[in-house]
């Protein structure tokens, strides 16, 4: 199953290019199931078919909301029933899923999204939309061009840094590393972004060091 191939080496991936499934066709990978102006929860159409941490995604309706993947989790659809360990002897994970195809229907993959920007009447605003996205809106991953356009300016970084969803430092670092390849000079992009972060984290050298190390 291709979703499992997605776990490892992300850094060389190009957003919207290597993620054949949704990116080249921009078909939605999921649907919003919980929404506020700042935070969205999406459920994947297929188990494990989630974008990676730090990816930029969009929800399409009257206006477009842009958000960043801050946490990905897979759990039982019924909160009262927890999966039980199933492996017998030398089983691989795939063996188990093949033996029990119903598992895929009992589990679901959910994605926590931090809203960072929106587009209305074709114009991009790097701050929150006044109205939250509707439930059941489709979510798809952003294309290369959109990522670049959005990250031309990084004033929304503080939203990611101060958020409490998942591990903010990893989200920021993943987001920037992924976005950097959409720019003609990725190194320069990262340095400029780093300078932004340095200004936001003035007074917290430890966190600044930790975050910058993840980017470099």
């Amino acid at each position: 199953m291709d979703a499992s191939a997605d776990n490892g080496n992300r850094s060389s991936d190009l957003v919207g290019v290597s993620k054949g499934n949704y990116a080249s066709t921009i078909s939605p990978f999921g649907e919003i199931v919980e929404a506020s102006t700042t935070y969205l929860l999406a459920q994947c159409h297929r188990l494990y078919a989630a974008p990676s941490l730090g990816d930029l995604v969009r929800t399409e309706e009257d206006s477009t909301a842009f958000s960043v993947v801050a946490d990905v989790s897979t759990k039982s659809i019924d909160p009262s029933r927890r999966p039980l360990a199933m492996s017998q002897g030398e089983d691989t994970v795939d063996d188990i899923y093949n033996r029990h195809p119903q598992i895929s229907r009992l589990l679901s993959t959910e994605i926590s999204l931090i809203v960072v920007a929106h587009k209305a009447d074709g114009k991009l605003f790097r701050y929150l939309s006044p109205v939250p996205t509707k439930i059941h809106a489709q979510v798809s991953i952003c294309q290369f061009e959109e990522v670049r356009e959005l990250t031309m300016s990084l004033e929304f970084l503080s939203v990611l840094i101060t958020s409490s969803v998942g591990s903010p430092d990893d989200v920021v670092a993943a987001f920037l590393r992924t976005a950097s390849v959409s720019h003609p000079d990725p190194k320069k992009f990262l340095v400029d972004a780093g300078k932004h972060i340095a200004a936001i984290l003035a007074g917290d050298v430890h966190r600044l060091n930790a975050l910058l190390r993840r980017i470099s």
Partner: protein
Amino acid sequence: METDKKCEDVSNVLGMVLAGSLTEGVRIKLASNVSTEQIKVGTFVSIRGELMRFFGVVTDVSLDSMDSSLTSIPPDVTNPFIHEVVSGTTVYGTLTVEPMLTLGDDKDPTSSLEGPLPAKTVPAHFAEVSIASETDIEFIFGKEDESHFYIGTPLDMETKLCLDVKELVKRSNGVFGKSGTGKTFLTRLLLIGILQNSAAVNLVFDMHSEYGWKGSSEDNKEVKGLKQLFSSKVAVFSLDEESSRRRGLTPDYVAKIGYGEIEPEDIQLLRETMGLSEVAAESSYNLRQRLGPQWLRDFLNLKSEQLLELAQEISVNERALSTLHNRLSRLKRFDFINESDKNDSVKQLLHYLERGMHVVLEFGRYGNSLAAYILVANILTRRIHDRYVYLKDRSSVDGIGEPRPVVITIEEAHKFLTPGIAGQTIFGSIAREMRKYNVTLLVVDQRPSGIDEEVMSQLGTKITCLLDSERDVNSVLSGVSGSRKLRSVLSRLESKQQALAFGDALPMPVVIRTREYGSSESYRELGWKDDRELAQQVKSDVEDLFGPDTS
């Protein structure tokens, strides 16, 4: 063109104004792509305020951080990425700039009708600071032309920076710097500036024979003197014909001084140099009274018995008189002093000056004797001054043209302008009376602290290279606004060919790298033509007159 200019502007942006005051200077945060190591004290910057443009010089460079704890827990700069990120943001450089001038229009400096004015306020917060452009420099200091002489370039720039020669010659001026910093080279350029502008004539007391004919540079290369570059406008007088001829020069005039031309006040000036007590020096006045115009000759011819007699006669301490006799006898070693009363050196000198010729008086071997230098310079200057006073007064009565202004250059100026005596010497009065009689000084000295304070304060323009001591720095900068900050600039000049210039001839203080002098290129830029070019010039002049040669 338009876009070119834009690019240039962007790359020159240094940072923005964050804080400061008129008295303390303006604090500027360096942009993150500019390192403190790229900016030197003395750099000339322009600040784009909201309503006007400011020009100033960098007087201090410092390091700062957003957060004081950073000095105890520094960011992880072993990681090159982190190092690059934090420089300019978390930690950054700041400059202190002394605003000097303002310009009304904020866009195109050249479109403003008014010239630059002294800064009376500071730019608003976040005003953009950049290195001054070529256009800025030209607009502020003037473009090279008849009255603007290219004297050097601002720090780290190739733009020509000019002095206003018309303003320069209005008052006495000074060139300072410790030995070997480039005073002589700078002075030579100033003399040329005055010569080319023809605002005044120069009289140079050339102690080391380096202005008129063949000076030398430190690496023992020969450099041309004024006479070699401008032979038709410069005359060289010599006190030591033999030395002049040995150096390949036929002096225009060999100067002699008669004993009768030496006055008691000349002896006063020699007190320190010849080791005379006050009493001994004073007694020369009694001698003059007793012995008449040829007092010195007659005095030196006396035998020791006769001295005793004379001492009683004029009631002077006998030991003092014999010391005086003893010391003054050294003057006999100066061959340029003679017993004749028909010397016309002064007349000749005035004759040249009045015709607009610049005169360099070479001392040859007597340049090693401070006594000879002081004596001759004092005698000649006194006589010229007398003459100018006469001419000037006559012109105001008869309405005849004023005498052509003369600039007298003296080296080791503190010997003439020591605090104790500057009140009485001719040089002191010239410096103090400004341009009243059309005579001004160009004083060249390595120890300005030895010069009378009042005289220093009367100097219109001062150009100073690196100085030896705190006292010298104080004396040069005393009375200058912003002197505390200029001090840091002055003390960090390079040890050669760099100078801080300020005063009447410049709208604001500025550090310059003195214009190169000594290469044939430099001579050519100063208007000199080599033999081939000269022949060419003659040929074309002739052709202009008579048409091309067809024979």
